[in-house]
């Protein structure tokens, strides 16, 4: 049996959603680890782009920043933000983007800005960064979150980045370039979006969790399909590669 941590499961699971040949906005952290893992396994031809300006990057170890020089060596172009977020992303050329969030609602809308009321926020979070741009314009969006009930809310404290907004027709109203979120991956389960309502739906539960565990850990009415499979476990190779990419355990922690 393969031994893995929650974080390793989350990253390995997310990596399976990247398809070979895609143009991928990797960012940093777990999403980047997932993208790099995909590139080293089933999707060697993905074109990894950092919004700071790196195109077709092949970092040997995981960068800590979207602007990290570790993105540079071996990349095929090194430019700037107008290129990546403007020409490429807004131009409709990015297949898949990754985002995390502090809060998500049942349409996949995201908050990365504030906890508490806007007028007197309890916690200032990082903000949109390129998140709103990626959520608006990437063809598909993969959302990665550690699972915490308080994050799956009925109403966001602040609406930073668009998921499916208020459901069918919403993205079209604003002429959004991209298709919106496709999947939400946590350390407990995978969720997708029901096509008719564009509301979040349980897709699979990770080994060791039940459907009820998930229901208990979201604050909105989660759509539960009749058949909820168990998410496949990561392979030993995936875990080995992840640790090679993050040798200092910045994202994965110190060893397993």
């Amino acid at each position: 049996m393969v031994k893995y941590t929650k974080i390793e499961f989350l990253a390995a699971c997310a990596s399976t959603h990247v398809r070979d040949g895609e143009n991928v906005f990797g960012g940093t952290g777990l999403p980047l680890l997932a993208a790099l893992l995909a590139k080293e396994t089933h999707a060697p031809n993905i074109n990894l782009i950092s919004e700071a300006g790196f195109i077709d990057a092949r970092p040997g170890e995981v960068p800590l920043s979207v602007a990290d020089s570790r993105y540079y060596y071996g990349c095929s172009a090194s430019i700037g933000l107008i290129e990546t977020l403007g020409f490429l992303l807004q131009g409709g050329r990015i297949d898949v983007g990754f985002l995390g969030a502090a809060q998500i609602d049942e349409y996949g809308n995201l908050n990365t800005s504030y906890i508490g009321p806007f007028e007197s926020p309890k916690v200032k979070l990082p903000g949109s960064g390129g998140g709103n741009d990626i959520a608006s314009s990437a063809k598909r969006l993969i959302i990665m979150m550690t699972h915490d009930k308080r994050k799956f809310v009925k109403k966001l404290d602040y609406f930073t980045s668009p998921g499916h907004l208020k459901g069918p027709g919403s993205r079209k109203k604003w002429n959004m370039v991209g298709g919106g979120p496709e999947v939400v991956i946590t350390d407990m389960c995978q969720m997708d979006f029901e096509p008719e309502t564009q509301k979040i739906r349980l897709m699979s539960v990770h080994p060791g969790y039940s459907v009820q565990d998930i229901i208990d850990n979201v604050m909105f009415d989660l759509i539960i399909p009749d058949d909820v499979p168990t998410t496949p476990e990561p392979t030993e190779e995936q875990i080995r590669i992840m640790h090679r990419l993050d040798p200092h355990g910045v994202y994965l922690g110190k060893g397993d």
Partner: protein
Amino acid sequence: MASIIMLKVCQLTEAEVMDKIITLKEAAKMVPDGSSLFWGGFGYQRAPIAFAAELARQKKRNLTIHTCGSEVDLEIMAGAGVASRFEIAFVAIEALGLAYNMRRRVAEGKVQVEDYSNLAMAMRFLGGALNVPFMPIRSLMGTDIVNKSRYLGDKKLKVIDCPFTGEKICLVPSLQPDFSIVHVQRVDSNGNAQIDGIIGEDIEGSRCGKKLIVLAEELIHEDEIRFRPDQTKIPAMYVDHVVILPFTAHPMQCHNYYDYDLEHLMMFHKLSRTEEGWNEYLENYILGVDDHYGYLDKVGWDRLMSLRAKKPLGY
């Protein structure tokens, strides 16, 4: 023939503009309280940390900072009370966690953040550089970035019907701040600047400010600029002042010059969790030293030298 022309002009030009080179202290002194600044660098790369620290030493107040996303530099300016307004898309210490100083100052009401996205800010700088009043973008719409504002009110942005297509489009107001502060790898004495690695939003940002101060790791001769004119990312005619200093971005990185100092960065981040910890850092590394070289001495040159970039990696 060409060489005769060049020789003559070279001498005159150098003489005329040599005084663009000033000290960090002099540069920071030029920024009056209440000024607005474009702030260069992106993420861990080419962050003008030394300038933020000097602003803190000179007790500057009520600055407004415009940038896409920055990290330690914004934390210093928020923490030390230098800046009270930020028009930004992002602040955190990537990979490590939240920006605690910013979090506390926002909770205290001492800092106001007007929220945009990275593309929105980059386009605001592009619009400012082009000297047009706004730029259109396709993101932001449908979210609270459109619906909520701290202090710009209805000047924050506008969603309009496109006069050509009828579709909804978002207009963000262009920015022409009082100063642009940009950190680069190399500059000649005229101010012609070369940047290695990614540019982030510094092409647009360097052109949008009313005055441009360039901080460079290294001074190069004008001949090197003129031998490779397609490497010039910021022509001298935009540049008002030049500051030459090594390790301007420490503990962040400068491509081809030095890597980030992860140990220092983690120490900074850990201390900034509390006001006490932050004050300790502020006293030790910023207010308690005379200048940037004092800071570098404190960090230690053995450590600084160990951070130097290896070819061809650039870090």
